[in-house]
């Protein structure tokens, strides 16, 4: 079998890009697992809401003309919009769907997460319908909301969600530079570099700040952490906030990169990112980062030897092998210690 090097290199670059998405999403799984020992299966929907919130923000900014006057600021605000949308979703989810089950059996929050996952998908899909229904509520012949609000709110809800595929404006073009036969897109470089910067910032936050130390303390021993004056609920909420923001950023990036978003878009990247988190060692933050890139590259390399339809086989094959032969993952020693 001969290797077509330009194609292979192209796939490796793509692998790094996709790996960035996986890594950013995987961090949310691993951080939540760290503090709650629970897999937040609704994390893939937090990522999806991030993509939708980003597009929604983008459309608002475009209406204001900000994308013409100062595109850099507009892009930054778009990412912020996606991150905030995802963060609100994640924090609300923790408060309503997981915290009441904190003392229940370990399976209960897991099932709650799966339920929340369907709920969020349907919520975004039905948002325009819900908007129309709520705006149509009448009390004693009187409309509950002022008539002039109704149309704009319905329009906004329609713009946010719905069952149709939504399209991100093509601001990430195929423009780039060539190294020999290999074409590298600027967008790929931007995604890789900004992801690495975000992850470095997260690592420093967890390693050195007061908040980061409190998060690690909660992950290691909740009772002892409370004894240090740490408000456990607050730290868990912050953990969801940060993990969800990372997923939101990944959602916006993915929307910009692949252009199309839909309410079911979270499932595959979500479960791949989960694989990445397990691969790196669930609960381990550098592990999730490493796992994301290893998985992205493994898929790219796999494509070199297997038909494209087998891409998912590579990812999930790795998951099965890891679970059989090294359930603690590549960097998983710390977690194994913690379980003792």
């Amino acid at each position, binding site marked *: 079998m001969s290797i077509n090097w330009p194609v292979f290199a192209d796939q490796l670059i793509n692998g790094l890009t996709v790996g960035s998405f996986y890594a950013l999403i995987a961090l949310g799984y691993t951080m939540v697992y760290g503090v709650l020992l629970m897999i937040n299966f609704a994390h893939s929907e937090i990522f999806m809401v991030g993509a939708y919130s980003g597009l929604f923000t983008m459309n608002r900014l475009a209406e204001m003309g900000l994308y013409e006057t100062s595109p850099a600021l507009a892009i930054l605000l778009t990412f912020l919009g996606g991150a905030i949308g995802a963060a609100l979703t994640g924090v609300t989810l923790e408060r309503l769907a997981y915290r009441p089950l904190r003392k229940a059996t370990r399976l209960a929050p897991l099932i709650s997460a799966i339920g929340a996952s369907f709920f969020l998908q349907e919520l975004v899909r039905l948002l325009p319908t819900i908007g129309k229904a709520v705006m149509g509520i009448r009390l004693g012949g009187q409309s509950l909301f002022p008539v002039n609000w109704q149309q704009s709110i319905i329009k906004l809800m329609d713009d946010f969600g719905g069952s149709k595929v939504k399209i991100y404006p093509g601001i990430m073009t195929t423009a780039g530079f060539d190294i020999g036969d290999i074409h590298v897109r600027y967008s790929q470089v931007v995604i890789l570099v900004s992801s690495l910067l975000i992850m470095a*910032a997260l690592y420093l*936050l967890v390693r*050195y*700040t*007061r*908040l*980061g*130390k*409190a998060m*690690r*303390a909660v992950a*290691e*021993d909740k*009772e*002892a*952490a*409370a*004894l*240090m*004056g*740490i*408000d*456990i609920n607050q730290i868990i909420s*912050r953990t969801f*906030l*940060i993990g969800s923001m990372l997923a939101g950023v990944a959602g916006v990036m993915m929307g910009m990169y692949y252009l199309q978003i839909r309410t079911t878009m979270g499932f595959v990247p979500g479960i791949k990112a989960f694989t990445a988190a397990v691969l790196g060692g669930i609960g381990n933050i550098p592990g999730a980062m490493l796992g994301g890139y290893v998985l992205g590259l493994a898929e790219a390399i796999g494509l070199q030897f297997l038909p494209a339809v087998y891409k998912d086989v590579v990812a999930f094959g790795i998951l099965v092998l890891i679970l059989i032969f090294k359930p603690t993952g590549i960097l998983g020693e*710390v977690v194994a*210690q*913690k379980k003792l």
Partner: protein
Amino acid sequence: MSIVLETRQVTKNFGGLMAVNRVDLVVPERAIASVIGPNGAGKTTFFNCVSGFYTPEEGQIEFQGQSLVGVPPYQIARAGIARTYQNIRLFPAMTALENILVGRHSRLKTGLIGAIVRPSAAVREEQTASQYALELLDLVGLMGEANTLARNLPYGDQRRLEVARALANDPTLLMLDEPTAGMNPQETRDMMAFILRIRDEFSLTILLIEHDMRVVMGVSDQVSVLDYGVKIAEGTPAEVQANPIVIEAYLGRPTE
């Protein structure tokens, strides 16, 4: 002299077992008060009631005049009560220095925003906190171990680190649960001298749990004896030592 901790008729039972039964305790400011008793006498349960992990079914617990019943543990810690555990509860995968910094958590302010944008005030706060943490490490003789993971420290060092971590919270009341457990006689004497020293240096009030009666005699201002959850005696060490009920609780009733 004002009262730091006062409990009245504190009762905690576990499915019919009276672990703590109507316990009254008054701890004056800067005293070293010891709670002793045989294994299973309810000493640790009593501690858990004070630090908020258990809510007593009956009774009152007041710290500097404020009721603690129903207050969550993290707020009790913030109010100025720190404790150590009988079976050391450090954060094993964090360094000695980090353990102390976590202990200082509630005395520092930087939150989420500060952690991300890092204004100079946040950076300064971290530096001051690290400086103070190093001083505490020095105090307990662990200066060279700042970057050693807690789980890699020898047993005696872990014990002292746990005390240093509790001190980092600037407590008014320090509760020590069998601080000399597993120590040899020399280490035990050192620990007792150390407890007297920190009481004076940090103006602490100390509540001490001990299993071994002899250990507390030298340092305690007052001794309370628990047996099957009930306070059976109280007084100065000499009084308690001479009390026949106490001797019986420890040695059993002589069979005639």
